[in-house]
């Protein structure tokens, strides 16, 4: 009676039977399993507690798990059906942690081939979880039998288990292909689906086989809607890979699925069609109308799926999605918040400027009720909107700052901050308001990483606003209130103000002096460093040590420092020996952005520290004898094709520039199956001044393999001779060989050669791009001790400023600064600011004033620390 009361009380507490159980007690209780005869009721309760604990995330040590596992094996003597099934679950849970789990193999094989149907499917799943690649062959026979078993549960279990096992033993599972083929004809919808999954998995590396499989199955109609969905995905993937337009039979199949009787299949087909790259409008219309009708479905799932898909493709298929606007309007007031959010954000993407205000108001009513994930969707829509309608920035900005003040996770906050930053960068009018919002935000920001980012931005943008002094208060507040990381960032930001605004310098010095008493080492160090530099009152010092960040690539710096520390020399470390960081090109940045915007659910920030291409090549090049003395790699060029793509031999060249020499890396591919090439090398006809230091041939080049041969050239002393064009010939010894074995027929080959396209070494190869934050300051600094060259050109072949800018950047290989590569619309004149470093370390700054009139006229001003370099730049243009 008392226990009954207790139970009731527990129920009222809302706690479940298992709250408060402890790992140690449960593991103690496992001893009950050893009793004979087995008490099923008691054992089931204990098994349930173990499973509960494991699923609550409790970790068992290997010995604990092994002990529990072996106690569990004794339960096989009981014939109790429920207990046995609990044991299977236990085995699956513990199989990863416990040792010697293999011991239950025989017991499980007995159960899976036995008469009791209730055991069989579960036994198969448990068996596959304990089996490793070596043991798999022992149970192969049983698995094959189980796949074609009449019992659908058994068959499904075997198929799904095989699918899981492909991860560790792909080869063994491949042998199940006949059985899976048989299972695909099953009447059971699940078996058919799983069989298709296994078949696809077995063949997925072989495109032709997949093609055949899909072609065969599209003709016979599959009963299972899930299998049909999978088939649609496979067909869509094939269409996607088949780049030259739509492959008709597969597309027809997908389109025919739009008339399927199952809604899942219809949705899948519509989803596939709208996501295909090249679809015509008429093809699209049918799919969109299906989604449109789903928007009015009484089922929330269908509405959600439809509107989510429309949201995803709103940008790419703007016109088609616009047709659904009426239906989407209805969904704004949907009781399901997720649907409403997606509907509104879709409308924001497709809508016109006039509807923005109304929609924003609508979102504001429920934004606090939706989950973070969807808030991120809203933020992304706003970002797209602000880029589309710059004039609406004040509405959007107010809205964003409101969202910023709400509760939310890091990812959500970061996406808002990102959006505000994007707006600031894109739209000068919005800068002051945006900075003000961000200042307010960091007053109460619990995410250190975000605060640091915003402080950095304030340091960069703040000094150039009309009234820089008002930001100082916000930044200094951080120094007083925050953790060391944020304090250090705040100090760096303040130093930027001190360096850029002379009238604030005095105050900043006072503040920095105070910070030198900080309790944290890093904060103190920074404060001392900056106040020292600022006290020199020398703008050129400011420029190189405060405003511009060091231009070296961090991974290389780390490597060089490590090497320096390992070798014991008395020489000071030379920062110039570290390769310069590569500024990501615009395309890379936009590609990364598109990737994140295209996805509706952002999948967590998994950014790796990217090792630059130079870094990669540098490591490879050090392996080649003789190149090590050349110093550190300065720049690697893009890949240049020296042959047509569909020829007998494909040769690509990469130019690696060092300070005094250039290494040409030729990647050669042999596409003739009946030839073995030996001693493959490239013969160059170097122009005057160039000297070939070394040639490293590729010894052997079998069919379909890429081999590499190198040539090391010394740059001419005279810079002007360094821009040159060489004739190139590929030379090699051919040995005819058997196409099947690849072994040569005879030992003797004959010499042959193959003419390559001319190889150019141009200015861009010798220049590394450098990103300057404050280009103007660097420009003025260089005016004193350098050479300036000025020249005027007329670029007749260019018809727009954009085209000219793009070509100039590409030709000179310099990095545009201060976003001068973006041209405001409707302008006929533009100034392009560029920066870079010539091999050997001479700085180059270029200002190109462009004017559009009947072609483009350009006035090019070059400043460089080396006179010849400046002249070379001006001479090579034109």
């Amino acid at each position, binding site marked *: 009676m008392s226990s009954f009361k207790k139970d009731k009380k527990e129920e009222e507490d809302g706690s479940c039977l298992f709250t408060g159980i402890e790992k140690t007690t449960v593991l103690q209780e496992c001893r009950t399993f050893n009793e004979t005869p087995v008490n099923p009721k008691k054992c089931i309760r204990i098994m349930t507690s173990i499973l509960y604990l494991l699923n609550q995330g409790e970790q068992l040590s290997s010995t604990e798990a092994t002990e529990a596992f072996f106690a569990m094996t004794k339960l096989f*003597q009981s014939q109790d059906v429920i207990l046995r099934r609990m044991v299977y679950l236990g085995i699956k849970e513990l199989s990863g942690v416990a040792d010697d789990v293999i011991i239950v193999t025989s017991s499980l*094989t007995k159960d899976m081939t036995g008469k009791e149907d209730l055991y069989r499917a579960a036994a198969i799943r448990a068996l596959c979880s304990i089996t490793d690649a070596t043991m798999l062959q022992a149970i192969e026979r049983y698995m094959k039998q189980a796949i074609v078993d009449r019992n659908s549960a058994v068959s499904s279990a075997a198929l799904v288990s095989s699918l899981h096992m492909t991860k560790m033993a792909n080869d063994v599972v491949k042998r199940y292909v006949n059985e899976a083929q048989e299972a695909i004809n099953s009447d059971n919808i699940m078996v058919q689906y799983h069989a298709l999954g296994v078949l696809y998995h077995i063949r997925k590396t072989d495109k032709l086989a997949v093609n055949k499989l899909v072609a065969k199955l599209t003709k016979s109609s599959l009963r299972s809607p899930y299998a049909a969905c999978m088939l649609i995905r496979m067909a869509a993937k094939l269409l996607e890979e088949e780049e030259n337009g739509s492959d008709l039979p597969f597309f027809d199949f997908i389109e025919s699925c739009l008339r399927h009787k199952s809604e899942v299949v219809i949705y899948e087909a519509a989803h596939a069609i709208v996501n295909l790259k090249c679809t015509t409008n008429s093809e699209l219309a049918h799919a969109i109308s299906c989604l449109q009708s789903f928007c009015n479905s009484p089922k929330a799932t269908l509405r959600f799926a439809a509107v989510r898909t429309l949201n995803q493709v709103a940008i790419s298929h703007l016109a088609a999605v616009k047709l659904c606007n009426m239906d989407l309007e209805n969904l704004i007031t949907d009781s399901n918040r997720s649907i409403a959010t997606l509907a509104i954000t879709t409308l924001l993407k497709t809508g016109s400027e006039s509807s923005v205000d109304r929609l924003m108001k609508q979102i504001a009513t429920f934004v606090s009720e939706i989950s973070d994930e969807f808030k991120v969707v809203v933020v992304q829509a706003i970002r797209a909107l602000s880029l589309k309608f710059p004039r609406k920035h004040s509405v959007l900005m107010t809205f964003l700052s409101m969202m910023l003040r709400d509760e939310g996770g890091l990812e959500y906050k970061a996406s808002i901050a990102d959006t505000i930053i994007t707006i600031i960068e894109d739209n000068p009018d919005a800068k002051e308001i945006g900075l003000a919002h961000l200042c307010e935000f960091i007053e109460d920001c619990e995410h250190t990483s975000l605060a640091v980012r915003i402080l950095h931005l304030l340091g960069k943008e703040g000094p150039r606003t009309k009234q820089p002094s008002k930001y100082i208060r916000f930044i200094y507040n951080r120094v007083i209130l925050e953790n060391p990381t944020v304090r250090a960032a705040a100090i760096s930001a303040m130093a930027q103000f001190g360096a850029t605004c002379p009238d604030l310098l005095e105050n900043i010095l006072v503040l920095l002096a105070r910070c030198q008493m900080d309790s944290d080492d890093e904060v103190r160090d920074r404060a001392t460093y900056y106040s020292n530099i600022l006290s020199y009152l020398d703008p050129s010092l400011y420029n190189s040590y405060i405003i511009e960040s060091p231009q070296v690539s961090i991974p290389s710096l780390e490597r060089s420092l490590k090497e320096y520390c390992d070798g014991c020399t008395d020489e000071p470390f030379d920062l110039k020996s570290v390769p310069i960081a590569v500024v990501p090109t615009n395309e890379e940045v936009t590609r990364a952005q598109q990737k994140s915007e295209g996805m509706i659910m952002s999948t967590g920030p998994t950014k790796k520290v990217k090792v630059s291409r130079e870094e990669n090549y540098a490591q490879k090049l050090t392996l080649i004898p003789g190149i090590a003395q050349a110093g550190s790699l300065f720049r690697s060029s893009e890949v240049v094709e020296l042959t047509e793509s569909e020829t007998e031999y494909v040769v690509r060249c990469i130019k690696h520039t060092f300070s005094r020499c250039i290494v040409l890396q030729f990647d050669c591919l042999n596409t003739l199956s009946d030839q073995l090439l030996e001693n493959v090398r490239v013969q160059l006809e170097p122009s005057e001044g160039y000297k070939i230091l070394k040639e490293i041939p590729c010894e052997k080049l079998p069919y379909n393999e890429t081999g590499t041969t190198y040539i090391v050239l010394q740059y001419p002393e005279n810079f002007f001779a360094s821009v040159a064009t060489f004739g190139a010939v590929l030379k090699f010894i051919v040995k005819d060989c058997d196409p099947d074995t690849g072994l040569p027929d005879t030992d003797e080959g004959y010499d042959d050669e193959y003419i390559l396209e001319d190889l150019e070494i141009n200015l861009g190869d010798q220049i590394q791009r450098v990103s300057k934050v404050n280009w103007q300051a660097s420009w003025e600094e260089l005016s004193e001790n350098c050479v300036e060259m000025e020249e005027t050109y007329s670029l007749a072949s260019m018809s727009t400023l954009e085209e000219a800018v793009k070509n100039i950047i590409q030709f000179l290989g310099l990095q545009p600064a201060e976003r001068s590569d973006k041209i405001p619309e409707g302008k006929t004149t533009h100034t392009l600011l560029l920066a870079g470093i010539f091999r050997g370390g001479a700085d180059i700054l270029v200002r190109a004033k462009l004017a559009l009139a009947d072609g483009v006229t350009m006035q090019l001003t070059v400043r460089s620390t080396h006179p010849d370099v400046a002249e070379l730049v001006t001479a090579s243009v034109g």
Partner: protein
Amino acid sequence: MGLFQKLALFLGIRKKEVNVLVIGLNNSGKSTVINHFKNDEDKASDIVPTVGFSIERFQNQNLAFTAFDMSGHGKYRDLWEHYYKDCHGIIFVVDSSDRLRLVVVKDELDILLQHPDVCNRKIPVLFFANKMDCKDALSSVKIAAGLGMDKIMDKPWHISASNALTGEGLNEGVEWLTQQIREYIVNNKF
């Protein structure tokens, strides 16, 4: 435990359940021995090497046996000890035609007898000198001598020559085991 079961136990109608452990080197015929005792409808037609262990049941003279048929493969032998603790008898199967590995058998036997879960208990050990039909099979006496069984003082043991394929000698051995386990149970008030 239900009232009926208690009553049944009291009256001695209910069968006693005992656990026996079946061990021995691989290919000595453990699974085949157990297969012989099973009911006709449960018998397996072909015996494959056991991986890990399998649990089988059979009856003899009102005693219900649960046999833990362990794998004898080299890498699984160290798993036997997990099951020593709660067994009431041990059946040790020896391939009497495999002279070469008799030393391995002796090793394994010594390890078994010295194990803390076994050495202090008076559990009966039944040896089957299996494959007696083979031409070069050793006699049970020779095996007993070869394994040094005369030194086993603290446990009742018995060796019987057997042929698991025909069943010869098996029943005799198990009857001895049944008898011993009964005594063991009475002495330990199980």
